[in-house]
């Protein structure tokens, strides 16, 4: 159903209807932005790259044959754009690490393990954990959890083999889990005994 709608909007866009493309942007902007921001870690930069992604999609839309889902094709472009941006902007990693260090200090000073961690603070901690993954791992986790994509689709987007995706995904989920335990988003008891807090 969603695919039919996408195909309809694509056909309308190719006939010169810019509003149809606006509908596609509205529909997928949060998914694309989430993938890109998880990889780049910087909101402003991610917004620019996400915009570039949609512009590239518009320019290449006539070349989309429909062999894969539109969303898979779109995410592939977003993933590549984000990787290109990372390559272009190598200094970004250093500045990000610096920001993370500061965040860590702040986190250590304001945090009291006995306090209940809920709401915004908890969300910030989870985000901080995701942000500590490297760009590819962050993208894989995002595809796996947020987009509910299959291993095959993730492999198609990232141009990795399915086995490679499985291994990387397993490692990144394990790493993310350990980070969440470390940041006390999830309890150690859960890790050891499989119980909730």
């Amino acid at each position: 159903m969603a695919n039919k709608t996408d195909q309809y909007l694509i056909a309308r866009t190719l006939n010169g209807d810019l509003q149809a493309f606006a509908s596609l942007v509205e529909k997928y902007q949060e998914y694309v932005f989430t993938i890109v921001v998880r990889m780049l870690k910087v909101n402003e930069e991610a917004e620019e790259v996400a915009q570039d992604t949609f512009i590239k999609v518009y320019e290449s839309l006539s070349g989309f044959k429909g062999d894969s889902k539109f969303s898979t094709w779109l995410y592939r472009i977003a993933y590549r754009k984000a990787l290109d941006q990372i390559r272009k902007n190598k200094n970004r990693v250093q500045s990000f690490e610096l920001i993370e260090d500061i965040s860590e200090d702040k986190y250590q000073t304001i945090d009291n393990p006995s306090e209940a961690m809920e709401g915004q603070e908890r969300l910030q901690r989870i985000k901080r954990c995701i942000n500590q993954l490297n760009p590819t791992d962050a993208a894989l986790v995002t595809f796996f959890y947020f987009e509910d994509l299959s291993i095959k689709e993730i492999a198609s987007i990232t141009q990795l083999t399915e086995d490679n995706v499985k291994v990387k995904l397993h490692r990144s989920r394990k790493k993310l889990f350990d980070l969440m335990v470390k940041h006390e988003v999830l309890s150690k008891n859960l890790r050891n005994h499989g119980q909730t807090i």
Partner: protein
Amino acid sequence: MDKLSSKEEDRLKRAIDEVGLEKPSKMFTTNVLNVIQRKMVEYSQPAPLISKKGWALVIFIFAGCCSLFLFYPNEGIQWFRTLEQLNAQFPQGLFDGIKISKTAVFAISLMGLFLLQLPFLLQLVNKQRNME
């Protein structure tokens, strides 16, 4: 490396789901459309009023005339003679009584040129509108 148990996996998924999707700025779609529209205007380069085919025709006619004058300089051409004959048949002194000032002649000439360009200009504007 230990494999996450199903309960750990479940808790991890729930924790990640709590964060949800990130939202771009409210102007995101507008910004994307603005850039696309700007690019479309940049891409639509102004088309020349006389196309390549038009220029080829003009050059062909000009070259034809030149070659005629080159190969038949003094003998004259049958076609021109026919024109002269037709001109002779035309009633002479038909517009002798009419006097038009030079300014009016310039004005009529310019108007004629403008009217000649008008269909080309309309075609050009329509093309650009369709591209937008």
